[in-house]
């Protein structure tokens, strides 16, 4: 039983940021803008957030959880501002969305390393890792659920749950969500009904940048005690989760969970006796989640429901 808890606890390290960032991707892509720059936005958010965490830890005596919340919000805002450059180029300047996103992805690590190395000695930013919530009183007493969701968790778990429900509700149940989806499916029709395509897409990309930045902070906080100008390709993985989840909120959660569990299995295989006894090289476990994702994509891509106008430049004159 304990082994299962360990695996789930480890899986949350991947599942939480993947869900948050993939929901960000969802908002951009359902509005019709591809956002391959999730990686860059995550990194910028994480960079700003972790810098803030370090200085707050050094200079104030705030509660760790308070610092975490502030860092996530600031990371989100920085991600948002950074994403606006992508929105500007791909919506207003009608540039190729992949090219502009690539520029963002190139910029973020370079900027993080350059700034870190210029303002301090090395490129790593250290912080004290004291954000783990050991036990939540009362709730952690509930059998099974208490063990999984209320003990030895990070605050970001609840943020992710919040993101799932708010994200689903806004996208699927509100007028704004309907308009956003219309922009991704048939912008010309939406425009003819008075929806401001440019504005809706801008908001879509902005939300996506906010969630990516927030997810970046959540990711770095939960995996260690330093930031080394990388988010380990999680932005790209979030895009994979988004596509694997067929641009549908709850299937994204499912996709992220499957991927996260596989990743956790592969990193904690040594604590599972029967897998450990197979005596396979570590790299095999390492590549397993990626192979599994590829295989799943092979089976589920045939009936993929990508937004119809995804990646297309909207030009009013073309109507």
């Amino acid at each position, binding site marked *: 039983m304990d082994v299962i808890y360990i695996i789930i606890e480890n899986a949350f390290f991947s599942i939480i940021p993947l869900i948050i960032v993939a929901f960000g991707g969802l908002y951009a892509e359902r509005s019709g803008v591809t956002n*391959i720059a999730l990686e860059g936005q995550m990194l910028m958010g994480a960079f700003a957030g972790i810098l803030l965490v370090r200085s707050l830890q050094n200079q104030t005596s705030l509660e760790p959880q308070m610092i975490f919340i502030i860092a996530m919000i600031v990371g989100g805002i920085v991600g948002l501002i950074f994403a606006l*450059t992508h929105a*500007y*180029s791909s919506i*207003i*300047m*009608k*540039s*190729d969305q*992949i*090219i*502009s996103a*690539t*520029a*963002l*992805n*190139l*910029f973020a*690590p*370079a*900027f993080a*390393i*350059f700034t870190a*190395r*210029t303002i301090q000695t090395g*490129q790593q930013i250290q912080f004290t890792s004291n954000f783990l919530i050991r036990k939540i009183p009362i709730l952690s007493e509930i059998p099974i659920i208490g063990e999984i969701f209320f003990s030895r968790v990070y605050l970001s778990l609840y943020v992710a749950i919040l993101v799932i429900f708010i994200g689903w509700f806004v996208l699927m149940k509100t007028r704004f969500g309907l308009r956003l989806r219309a922009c991704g499916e048939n912008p010309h029709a939406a425009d003819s009904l008075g929806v401001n395509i440019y504005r809706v897409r801008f908001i879509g990309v902005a939300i996506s940048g906010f969630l990516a930045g927030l997810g970046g902070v959540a990711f770095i906080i939960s995996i260690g005690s330093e930031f080394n100008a990388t988010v380990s*390709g999680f932005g*790209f*993985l979030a*895009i*994979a989760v988004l*596509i*694997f989840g067929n641009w549908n909120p709850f299937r994204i959660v499912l996709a992220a969970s499957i991927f996260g569990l596989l990743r956790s299995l592969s990193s904690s295989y040594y604590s599972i006796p029967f897998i450990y006894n197979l005596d396979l*090289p570590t*790299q*095999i476990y*390492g*590549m397993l989640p*990626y*192979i599994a*994702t*590829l295989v799943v*994509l*092979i089976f589920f*891509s*045939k009936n*993929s429901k990508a937004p119809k106008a995804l990646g297309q430049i909207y030009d009013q004159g073309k109507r």
Partner: protein
Amino acid sequence: MKQIKKWMEILFPKIKQNMKSSFTKLNPILISVLLGLLVGFIIMFIFNPAQSFEGLYLLLIGGFKDGFPGFIIVLHKSAPIILTGLAVTFAFRTGLFNIGAAGQFMVGALAAIITGHAFSIGQPFGWILPVIVGALAGGIWGFVPGLLKATRNVNEVVASIMMNYIAAYFVSLVIQRTYYNETTTSSLSMPTGSRLPTIFNSLQLSSVDISFIIAVIVAIIAHIILSKTVLGFELKASGFSLDASKYAGMNTKRNVILAMGISGLFAGIGGAIFYLTASREYNIGIQIAAEGFTGISVALLGLGEPIGVIFSAIFLTHLKEGGFNLQSLVYATELSDIINAVIVYFVSISVGIQLYFKYLKKKRSLQKELGGDK
């Protein structure tokens, strides 16, 4: 003088036209480069105004800091990213985004390392077999996402990203079990018989081998395939409109697979030549080769033309060397990567800027017409 000009125009009617069109195509790139350097200068100025001018000078002089030999080294270092740039370009022209050049580069490196150790034929032709095997390995790695895209509609971007990670683990695994040096956690150094032949005798240029020449030859081959063959025409047609080319009777599925496969071949050669040298060993740490991602910006600045890729790769390497020069000042070398990113960003929005100028021109001429009517 006038006579000569007239004759020239009769003899080579297309040259002037070509020059003009390639200049208008190049214009946004040049402007973006200037803007990128400006942003770099501003960043230097913000962090430390006193050294910013010297910084700009060191950045611009790049590889030329060591004179002409320095430039030879820039050419040499540009070879791998010419090849990954070609890989990305080739897929781009077919309407595919090959973000997997990194993975193809890595398996190309692996195949070349294994072959180079197993069959060390000896100078000067020992390198040929490893390069060919490396190319094939890269080709297979590109072929898989192409096949999945064509037959199962799997998004090539996601499939390529997965292939990148699989490649990182796979290469690490195989190297660790074959030609592995435990103390350096890297592959064993390449036997002399399989290295690329070096060109110069002087100590300063001892690392320079024929990799740049190979890269240029591959670029020319890519140019010929794209602009002179039926296959190239079909690939470009698929890139313009998949539906139209399907309607015209082309086998678009085959074209997608071929484009990704050939793209992988190029990246695989890049990986092979990168490691067929005395000075480099493959470290088994799990890392995605940066050359694959640099290839994307090389391809973008190369305007989707194989020949353009050569120049953009040289330029970016020059810039990178400029970044290294900055180490003597207070700035970090990554400034060159920031400038690179800014240039790519401006190139991407230059399309919009051009459209705006066109629109202004149209508006003005329309106004003129209307005014004339009055």
